[in-house]
C-alpha cells in the first residue's frame, strides 16, 4: 500500500493502536510525527530513528490548542508539510447510565471529538494545495452500533462519525479524503481495564473467534490513508471480526 514518502501525523501514539500505527506507517516508508502525553512517544520515535526511519515526537495533551499548533509546526519544520492525519488519541471511561460522571463524559468529548475538530482545522492547511490529503479517524463499534455500558463513550464516537461524514463532503473539493475505522474489541490498555468476565463474554461474541489486535486496525487505517483508497471518502470501516453487541 502506497504511503511511502508521505508525512503522517498520529495522535495517541505512545501505546496501543497508535504505537502500532506509528511502527507500521514507518515500516511502509512514511515519515511519522507522533503525539501523546507521556514520554513513551519520544522513546518510540527514537527507536524508529535508530532503525533508519523518519520519526519525530512531541509530548502534550491533544486537547491543548498550543499542542495542536505545535504539532503542525513540527510537521512543517521537519518534513515540509502533511499528507495524512490519523486522529487516534482517545479515552474510554465505562459507565452504566445512572453512574456516568459528567466530568468523565465531558473529558471523552474533549479528547474524542473536540480535539479532533481542532486538529483537523489546523491540519487541512498543511495538505499540499491541489493534491489534498487523507484523514483517518478512530471511531468505534460503540459509536456505530451502541454498546451496553458505553453510552457516553459511544455518544462521543457517534459524534466523530458525524464529523467524519460531514468533513468528507466539505473537504472533497480540496481532494482531502476523510474516513474512519470502527474497531470492535482490540487488545490494548483500553480494553484491559474491563473485568475478565466482560472480556471473555465480549470475545465469545466475536464471530471470527478472537480478540482484535492493534495490527488488524493499523492495516485498515493504512489502507484508507494510502493512494489505494484514492476514490474512498466519507466511509466508516468496521474492523470488528463481526462482533455481536
Amino acid at each position: 500500500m502506497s504511503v511511502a514518502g508521505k508525512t503522517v501525523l498520529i495522535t495517541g501514539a505512545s501505546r496501543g493502536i497508535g504505537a502500532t500505527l506509528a511502527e507500521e506507517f514507518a515500516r511502509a516508508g512514511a515519515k511519522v510525527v507522533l503525539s501523546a502525553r507521556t514520554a513513551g512517544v519520544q522513546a518510540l520515535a527514537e527507536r524508529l530513528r535508530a532503525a533508519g526511519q523518519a520519526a519525530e515526537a512531541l509530548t502534550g495533551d491533544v486537547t491543548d490548542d498550543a499542542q495542536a499548533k505545535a504539532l503542525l509546526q513540527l510537521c512543517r519544520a521537519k518534513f515540509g508539510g502533511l499528507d495524512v492525519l490519523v486522529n487516534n488519541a482517545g479515552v474510554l471511561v465505562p459507565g452504566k447510565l445512572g453512574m456516568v460522571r459528567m466530568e468523565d463524559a465531558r473529558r471523552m468529548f474533549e479528547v474524542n471529538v473536540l480535539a479532533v475538530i481542532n486538529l483537523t482545522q489546523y491540519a487541512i492547511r498543511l495538505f499540499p494545495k491541489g493534491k489534498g490529503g487523507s484523514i483517518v479517524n478512530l471511531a468505534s463499534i460503540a459509536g456505530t452500533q451502541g454498546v451496553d455500558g458505553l453510552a457516553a463513550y459511544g455518544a462521543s464516537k457517534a459524534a466523530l462519525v458525524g464529523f467524519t461524514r460531514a468533513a468528507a463532503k466539505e473537504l472533497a473539493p480540496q481532494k482531502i479524503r476523510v474516513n474512519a475505522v470502527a474497531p470492535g474489541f482490540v487488545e490494548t490498555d483500553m480494553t484491559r481495564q474491563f473485568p475478565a468476565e466482560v472480556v471473555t463474554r465480549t470475545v465469545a461474541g466475536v464471530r471470527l473467534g478472537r480478540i482484535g489486535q492493534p495490527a488488524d486496525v493499523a492495516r485498515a487505517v493504512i489502507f484508507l490513508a494510502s493512494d489505494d483508497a484514492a476514490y474512498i471518502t466519507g466511509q466508516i470501516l468496521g474492523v470488528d471480526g463481526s462482533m455481536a453487541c
Partner: protein
Amino acid sequence: MDDEARLKKCFVETFGLSPDQVKDDLVYTGIKQWDSVGHMALVAAIEAEFGVMLDTDEILGLSSVAAARQLLRKHGVHRA
C-alpha cells in the same frame, strides 16, 4: 523581498490577482475567488510564507488585506 511584498505575494498567488489589485480594501467575499475555500488557501499560504500558525479566531478576523497585515504584525513577523 520585504514583508509587505511577501504578504502581497500570498494574495496574488492564491487568488490569481495582479499585485496592483492587492489593496488594503480588498476584503473577504469582495472577489469571487476569496470565498470560504479560498480563505483556507490564503491562510495556508500566509502561514507557510511567514512560518506562523494562526488560530481559528484569528482566521475569522482575517477579513481584509489590512487585517492580515495587522495580524502578522501582532505575531511579530511583519515589520513594514
